[in-house]
């Protein structure tokens, strides 16, 4: 999140999904350090193994990795109600 879009292949995606599952476990277990380290690993894999999309490309993303300094509290917010994202000021 906040670092642009990348195209990833199936192998990398499978790895991301495994880390994602561990991330959920970390949130449930209340382990913030573990969660952050997992999110950082996820972002790092995409940065190093993914293919960056052109800045002008308008494709929507299939998946978004939350920011790697996500707190447990924010992770919980992500799963409840409006989530993390502030309301866009466009209303």
């Amino acid at each position: 999140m906040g670092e642009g879009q990348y195209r990833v292949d199936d192998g990398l995606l499978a790895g991301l999904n495994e880390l994602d599952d561990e991330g959920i476990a970390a949130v449930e277990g209340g382990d913030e350090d573990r969660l952050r380290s997992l999110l950082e690993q996820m972002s790092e894999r995409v940065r190093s193994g993914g293919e960056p999309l052109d800045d002008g490309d308008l494709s929507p993303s299939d998946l978004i990795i939350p920011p790697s300094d996500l707190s447990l509290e924010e992770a919980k917010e992500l799963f409840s109600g409006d989530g993390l994202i502030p309301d866009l000021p466009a209303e």
Partner: protein
Amino acid sequence: MGLMSRASTVVKAKFSKLIDRAEDPNVMLDYSYEKQLELLQNVKRGVADVVTAKKRLQLQTDQLEGSVVKLETQARTALTSGREDLARVALERKSAVQQQLQGLDTQVQGLEAQQEKLVASERQLSAKIESFRSQKEVIKAQYSAAEAQVRIGEAASGIGEQMADTGLAIQRARDKTEQMTARAAAVEELVEAGTLDDFTSDGSTQLDRELAALASQSEVDTDLARLKAELGPGAAPKELDPAAKGTAQ
């Protein structure tokens, strides 16, 4: 549901409000583009705010570092004048300011890294909006209303994600800056007021406080011993410097 899919769902839901606005694809395209420009302005303003706050913090940090030097000088002067009690107060104050400065410095560096990312996302967002502008004319000219709906939906949600994403990054950077500004202000107050009584009492446990007091005490003792050694045994009490007395009290 995983973290990644949940984050995407939340982002998409936020933006779908924007693209459901108009029936006529042409109207929707123009409306959507106007909104994007408006949001881009907000993003630019947000980035600028964070940059300004960071600069102010850096300036504050510099000033506080200056006050560490000043307190050291005051301690030296006090000791030369045979006022060990005043020297101790000055060194205690110095130690407290140094402790606070350490954390602040790391945080300012963190903000610096975040700022670079923000500027990069702002640039990406501008590029996407520009791309949307040129694509919307193509869509208007070449597609039937039904097809245009689909294409606009895709393009707009691609941009929407980027906007929500950048918006969140800015909000987080702002929150961090606010916390840091509050902390820097507290240290400044400490320097100005010279009261250390409640210094360690915010949020720390009794044990933390005792440990901090011990660490700070021994640091002060070491500092005091060093100053004494530097000044030599011949540092007999001299006439008290009224200026130094006034500022160290």
